[in-house]
C-alpha cells in the first residue's frame, strides 16, 4: 500500500493557479525527487502536504490517514496536529529555534507532545528519558554529538541543516520532506547533507526531496518527478527521466544541468 497518496491536487494564490492537478503515490521506503524550474510549484506541493497551505481541491493521505479531501475546514486544530506527526519537513533555511541549544531544539516538540499522553503523569521519568535517548541517538546519526550544547548561531550552515534533519526525525515521521536542503549552503557543505540523506535512504526512510542537485537526485532516488508550470511534465525512474526524457521541456531543463 502507498504510504503517500496525492490526487489531483490544486492550489491557487489569488488568481494564479500554482498547482493545476498534481497526482502521485509513494510506497514505503521509496525516495522521490522533485525537480523543475523556479516557480513551477515544487515548494507548494510540500507545503500543502505538510498542512502549511490549504489546497483548493484534491486529495492527500499519509499512512492511511486522510490529510485533505476537501473537508479540511471541518477538522479541529488538534486533529490536524496529531496527523502532522506522520510527516516531517526540512526547510531550505533550517528555521532552528535560536534560543535553544541543539539538544533542546530536538526535544522541545517531543516533550510538549508527550504531555498530552494519558500515561504522562505515571511514566514521566521514562518518557523523558526515552526522548533524551532518542535525541542523543539522532545527533550521533547526523554526526553532531559533540555539538549537543551549542546554540544554532554557533554552527555552520551544514551543521544547522543536519540538526534540522535530526529535529524532523524526532517525531518518527512516516515520510520526510526536504525543500532544497542544500540550496542555502556553500557548495563545499552540500556533501555532508547529501551524505545524511543517503544514509537515511539506506535505512529505507521514505522521503520526498525537492532539489536542484541532479546527480544526487539520480543517485539516491527511486522515482523522479519533473514539475513544469504546476503540472507533472514527466515522471519515472531516474534513468527514465534523466537519460531518456520524453518531453522537450524536460530535455531542455536537464541539459541545463549537464556539464
Amino acid at each position, binding site marked *: 500500500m502507498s504510504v503517500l497518496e496525492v490526487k489531483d491536487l490544486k492550489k491557487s494564490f489569488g488568481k494564479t493557479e500554482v498547482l493545476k492537478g498534481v497526482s502521485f503515490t509513494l510506497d514505503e521506503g521509496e525516495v522521490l525527487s522533485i525537480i523543475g524550474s523556479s516557480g513551477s510549484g515544487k515548494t507548494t506541493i510540500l507545503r500543502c502536504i505538510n498542512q502549511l497551505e490549504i489546497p483548493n481541491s484534491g486529495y492527500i493521505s499519509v499512512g492511511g490517514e486522510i490529510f485533505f479531501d476537501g473537508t479540511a475546514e471541518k477538522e479541529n*486544530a488538534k486533529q490536524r496536529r496529531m496527523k502532522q506527526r506522520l510527516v516531517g519537513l526540512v526547510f531550505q533555511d533550517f*528555521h532552528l529555534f*535560536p534560543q535553544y541549544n541543539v539538544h533542546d531544539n530536538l526535544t522541545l516538540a517531543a516533550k510538549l507532545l508527550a504531555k498530552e499522553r494519558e500515561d504522562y503523569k505515571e511514566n514521566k521519568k521514562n518518557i523523558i528519558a526515552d526522548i533524551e535517548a532518542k535525541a542523543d541517538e539522532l545527533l550521533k546519526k547526523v554526526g553532531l554529538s559533540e555539538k549537543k550544547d551549542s546554540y544554532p548561531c554557533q554552527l555552520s550552515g551544514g551543521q544547522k541543516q543536519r540538526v534540522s534533519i535530526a529535529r*524532523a526525525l524526532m517525531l518518527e515521521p512516516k515520510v520526510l520532506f526536504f525543500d532544497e536542503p542544500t540550496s542555502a549552503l556553500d557548495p563545499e557543505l552540500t556533501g555532508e547533507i547529501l551524505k545524511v540523506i543517503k544514509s537515511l535512504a539506506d535505512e529505507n526512510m521514505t522521503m520526498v526531496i525537492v532539489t536542484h542537485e541532479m546527480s544526487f537526485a539520480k543517485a539516491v532516488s527511486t522515482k523522479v518527478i519533473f514539475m513544469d508550470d504546476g503540472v507533472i511534465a514527466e515522471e519515472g525512474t531516474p534513468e527514465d527521466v534523466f537519460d531518456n526524457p520524453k518531453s522537450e521541456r524536460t530535455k531542455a531543463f536537464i541539459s541545463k544541468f549537464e556539464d
Partner: protein
Amino acid sequence: MVTVAEVFRALFEGFVVSVEIFALTLLFAIPLGLVISFGSMSKFKPLKYVVKFFIWVIRGTPLMLQLIVIFYGPGLIATWAVNTGSTNPLVMWLATWTVMERFTAVIISFVINYACYFSEIFRGGIESIPKGQYEAGQVLGMTKTQVFFKVVLLQVVKNIIPPMSNEIITLVKDTSLARVISVYELIWAGQAFIKSDGLLWPLMTTAIFYLAFSGLLTFVFGKIEKKLDYYKN
C-alpha cells in the same frame, strides 16, 4: 533660611511621586500596549485602522497637551453642556470630572501615551520574527499557544529590549510633565525653592535624582541584554 537637609527631604518627597508615576505607568502601559499592538495587527481591518488612527493621534500630539485634555477637557465640555441646559446623567457625571484627582489624570494620560509607544515597539518586535519560526513549530506538531510562548516570545523580548529601555528612560524624565496640572513631583519640589527662598541650586540638584534613577535602569537593562546575549536571533 532652609537647611540642606530640608531641601533634600523636599526633593526626595518629589522624587517619590515621580517614581510612583513612573512605576504605575509601566505597570499599566505594558499590558495595555500589548493589547493595542494586537489591535494594530488585527486581520479585522476596521479595528486595525481605528487602532492605528488612535496611535497616530496619541503619538502625534504632545503628552503635555494630553494631560491638559484629560484633566480639564471632559469637565469643560460638560460644564458647557450643563450651561446650555442639558440634564443628561452622563454629562452630569462628566461635569464632576474636573475634581478628579490630579494624580489619577496624570496616570491615565501617561498610561495611554506610553501604551501607544510601547505598542509600536511590540508590533515591530513581533513582526520581526520570521514566518519560518511559526512554521517550524507547526510542522513539529506544536499548538499556536506553544509556538508563541516557547518559540516566539523570548525572541520578541530580545528584539525589543533596546527600544524599550530607550522609551522607559524617556519616561523617567517625562514624569516632570505632571506639574503642568499641578501634581507635585521632583521638578516642582526643586522649583519651589526659587520662589520661597531665592535658591536655584535645589532645582539643579534634581538632576542627580534623575541621573541616579536612569543610571540604575541603564544598568538593569544592560544586565538583561547580557543575559540574552547567549544566542543570536
